[in-house]
């Protein structure tokens, strides 16, 4: 008799985690942040609302909307990724650990990897929601602040790149956090580590070794947005690949 298949386990993960607060928080985070920033912009630039005479001299996608939103992303997304990774493990810890799952006809590798795939799915959907709400809010602000001329700039490729790289950077962070959550089996240690590394990554932005800290990559993406060119250095790619492979190989020893 065959063990329960990977897709069946993945489907069951979706089912049992469908009301998980951490997942919904992670999914809705870009939407909530974008909405709040839109309100803030409208409040701060109230004079320009429906007034084409007041103009904005820079690219509003980057220097008005992006400037605020992406800073929140850089600071909070890695920590939320840590909370998300922990919550996937926590649902099993509340159920007296992973080991009871292994009394079912499913292999350890399949259970751990299904959670990884689920994690990637959530990060991808969240990034996609972030991208779509960013575009929508830009179009909405274009109508409300006609003088800022959002429609005069086409930064679609830059924004797609940003969210794609955001997905890659967050997936590296969440892989590390998932491994840490499995090792420490507690909320405090993995989340503290994520918070510490995020702050350290921001402080050490100009250091040579910064590419070794995946937590800093989201912050570095902000500078890329301002310069108009988004890419990772070879070191960053190697480091992210290392995070993936180390986390995956770690499951073999659990």
């Amino acid at each position, binding site marked *: 008799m065959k063990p*329960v298949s990977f897709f*069946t386990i993945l489907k069951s993960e979706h*089912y049992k985690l469908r009301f998980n607060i951490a997942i919904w928080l992670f999914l809705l985070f870009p939407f909530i942040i974008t909405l709040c920033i839109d309100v803030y912009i409208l409040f701060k630039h109230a004079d320009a609302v429906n007034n084409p005479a007041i103009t904005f001299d820079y690219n509003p996608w980057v220097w008005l909307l992006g400037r605020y939103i992406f800073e929140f992303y850089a600071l909070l997304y890695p920590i939320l990724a840590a909370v998300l990774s922990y919550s996937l493990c926590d649902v099993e810890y*509340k159920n*007296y650990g992973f080991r009871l799952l292994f*009394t079912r006809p499913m292999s350890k590798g399949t259970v751990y990897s299904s959670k990884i795939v689920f994690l990637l799915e959530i990060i991808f959907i969240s990034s996609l929601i972030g991208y779509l709400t960013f575009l929508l809010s830009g179009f909405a602000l274009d109508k409300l602040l006609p003088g800022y001329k959002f429609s005069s700039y086409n930064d679609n490729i830059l924004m797609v790149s940003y969210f794609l790289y955001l997905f890659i950077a967050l997936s590296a962070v969440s892989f590390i956090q998932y491994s840490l959550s499995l090792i420490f089996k507690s909320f405090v240690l993995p989340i503290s580590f994520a918070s510490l590394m995020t702050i350290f990554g921001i402080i050490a932005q100009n250091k040579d070794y910064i590419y070794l800290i995946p937590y800093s990559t989201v912050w570095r993406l902000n500078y890329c947005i301002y310069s108009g060119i988004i890419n990772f250095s070879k070191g960053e790619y190697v480091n992210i690949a290392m995070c993936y492979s180390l986390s995956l190989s770690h499951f073999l020893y659990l």
Partner: protein
Amino acid sequence: MNILETNHLTFNYRNHSVLEDINLKIPEGSIYGYLGKNGEGKSTTIKILLGLEQTPKNTVFFNQKEFHSNRSYILQNIGCLVEQPFFYADLSAYENLNYLDMLYHCGQKRIKEVLELVNLTKDKDKKVRKYSTGMKQRLGIAMAMFHNPKLLILDEPLNGLDPQGVYEMRELMLKLQSEGKTIFISGHILAEQEKICTHIGVLNNKRLLFQGEINSLLNQKKLSYLIYTDQPERGMEICKEHLIPVNRISDRTFIIEIEQDGSFDSFRNLMQQNNIQIIFADKCQEKLESVFLHLIKSDL
């Protein structure tokens, strides 16, 4: 035929011996009580039977199939409740069973059946975290038996249950046995084990001290009879002359211990020959608890 067997099972944990040469034989259709003091290795045995602890090959067999080579097949046929019930507290009982249905594809009909069997149909949509301990335990059993396994392994299923819960669990286990399931229960509430178990295994000092039918275990010790007679002093004297252990209970009653059931007739004849009238004689039923303690003591 034995549904589950271990073959010279020995298990060490960090150079510390936990189990030595265990040869479990669990007959199909039985309720097998696995007894032992705390820390003797009952839960470790269960974890080994479920593949949660690593053991050498050819030590655990289910339906004569070796565990490591047939892990998936064997786990499909075993349902378990280890230490704590297996469920997700944020989901309802129905959702928990629906989750299992995704893994086993048993169908909605089976969910209804199982909920009815454990008497949770009324509360199926309530979040499990709002359940009482007894309800959680019953849901744990429901989840263990959802995929219709041949063998149920229950590790101390009566822990934390009130008398009503214990009664319900006992009835449930007897019902499952009548449906042809084999049940392996570990625990130390001996009075309860005595009521439901057909077979017993006693674990002591890392070894299996006794294994077999519960009746044969209860009959291992001498039988006691309460004797009410018109001449208790004379009767006791005769018992002592014939080396029959005897104890005075009250003015006209005493207790004797004899080897087996048949020899009570010889005792009666002995009394009649000496003109002592036995007004009343009652067999004192040996309790599993006293037999268990006797076994453990004699193993020291």
